[in-house]
């Protein structure tokens, strides 16, 4: 029994000098993740329990008296769930750093079920700016929920999605575009990198080059008049142009869209996302549309 326990805990017991390296943030290089310190650990203990990564906080849940479980989208480790201990106390050293929307630099160690956050440094506190406006807050929450749902497996790296989330949060915080447009552009591009890109230029059934007038969520995008299935809806030419602009990131066209067109596009994007995810998004219902 004792032997088994020892084996289980051994990786966490670091030699004194290495522990000093891990606890001192100044000695952890910006990108090298304490390369020298941890490399020597690898030799001594067989595996590396500590790791450092950049992450965006997607969601927080209360745990016990003062802890929180944070769901993170990390740059190199995909979606990770971790415990942040004691962060609900007002005297917590990093409580405000692990709030949703925060872009943070974290030092964590692998736990059996959940990892544990031991240090957090803010890279960009998007939450403050986003929560100061209700429209931005609701659109931003939908960005986070979409990102969480599109990462089906934990610990499956998805750098492009991570960069897309950071870009969307920055656009929301800097108020460069209408919040609901940022959300729709994010959803379209996030789905496209996850393998659900909607067909916009040509018919999704026969491939005939458009522009077409019908959109069918079940068929995977625009369809021509001939292959139009039962549930297809008619889309205005302006909405089709806006969809293309949002997917391509052509903001001069996207920003010039009429509010009516924007609402039409939001409806299509929401329907398409929820059909592909096979489940509704809770936050989408509450997004404030301009």
């Amino acid at each position, binding site marked *: 029994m004792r032997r088994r326990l020892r084996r289980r805990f051994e990786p966490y017991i670091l030699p004194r000098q290495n522990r000093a390296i891990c606890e001192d943030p100044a000695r952890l290089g910006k990108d090298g993740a304490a390369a020298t310190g941890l490399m020597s650990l690898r030799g001594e203990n067989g595996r590396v329990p500590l790791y450092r990564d950049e992450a965006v906080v997607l969601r927080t849940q209360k745990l016990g008296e003062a802890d929180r479980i944070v769901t993170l989208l990390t740059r190199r480790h995909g979606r990770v769930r971790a415990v942040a201990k004691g962060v609900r106390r007002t*005297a917590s050293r990093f409580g405000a750093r692990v709030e949703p929307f925060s872009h943070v630099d974290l030092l964590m160690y692998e736990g059996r079920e959940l990892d544990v956050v031991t240090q957090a440094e803010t890279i960009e506190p998007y*939450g403050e700016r986003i929560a100061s406006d*209700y429209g931005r807050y609701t659109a931003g929450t939908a960005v986070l929920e979409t990102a969480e749902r599109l990462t089906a497996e934990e610990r499956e790296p998805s750098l492009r999605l991570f960069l897309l989330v950071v870009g969307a949060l920055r656009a929301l915080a800097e108020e460069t575009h209408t919040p609901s447009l940022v959300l729709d552009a994010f959803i379209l591009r996030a789905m496209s990198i996850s393998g659900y890109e909607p067909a916009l230029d040509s018919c999704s059934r026969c491939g005939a080059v458009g522009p077409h007038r019908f959109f069918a969520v079940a068929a995977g995008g625009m369809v021509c008049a001939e292959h139009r299935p039962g549930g297809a809806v008619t889309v205005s030419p302006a909405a089709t142009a806006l969809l293309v602009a949002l997917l391509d990131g052509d903001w001069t066209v996207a920003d010039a869209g009429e509010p009516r067109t924007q609402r039409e596009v939001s409806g299509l994007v929401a329907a398409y996302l929820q059909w592909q995810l096979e489940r509704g998004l*809770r936050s989408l219902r*509450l997004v404030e549309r301009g």
Partner: protein
Amino acid sequence: MYEGAVQDLIDELGRLPGVGPKSAQRIAFHLLAADPVDVRRLVTALTEVKERVRFCSVCGNVTEEEQCKICRDPRRDVAVICVVEEPKDVVAIEKTREFHGRYHVLGGAISPIEGIGPDDLRIRELMSRLADDTITELILATDPNLEGEATATYLARLVKPMNIRVTRLASGLPVGGDLEYADEVTLGRAFEGRRLLDV
């Protein structure tokens, strides 16, 4: 596994927050060994809390009457309302003895990711209270976290056309803490809200 009543008790206790299977077992055996009078007192307390306690018709705080003690108190300032998320927050603010107005308990904060929108909170009730001309100040005392901040901005925007002073609790450094350990957001807010030291 135990038989009948003992196992039933352990199962029920195990459903309480923060009580795991081992703690549930320990509590169950403590009750088994305890004096019947003590156990009866616990049983009475449990039934009474469900039978007698309800929510104040004005502010939404827990009470045993139609209105809570604070709403009934004629010495409280009727012109100021302090908005909080939970009844627990009322107790926390009362302990400071700084506030002499009345409260409004929302029952949570706006959290789209949990599916909680403005319609799920007691915001409509708050608006009808504010329609009365006597109210001059609304203090937003929701939690200083993301959901709480968003709820505060939502309420501030809603109340703006009503000609009522809307204030938000200050954020800053915890008393008794170290400056170097404060996070950037809190320290930034503390700078923003610094005040003149008039000696």
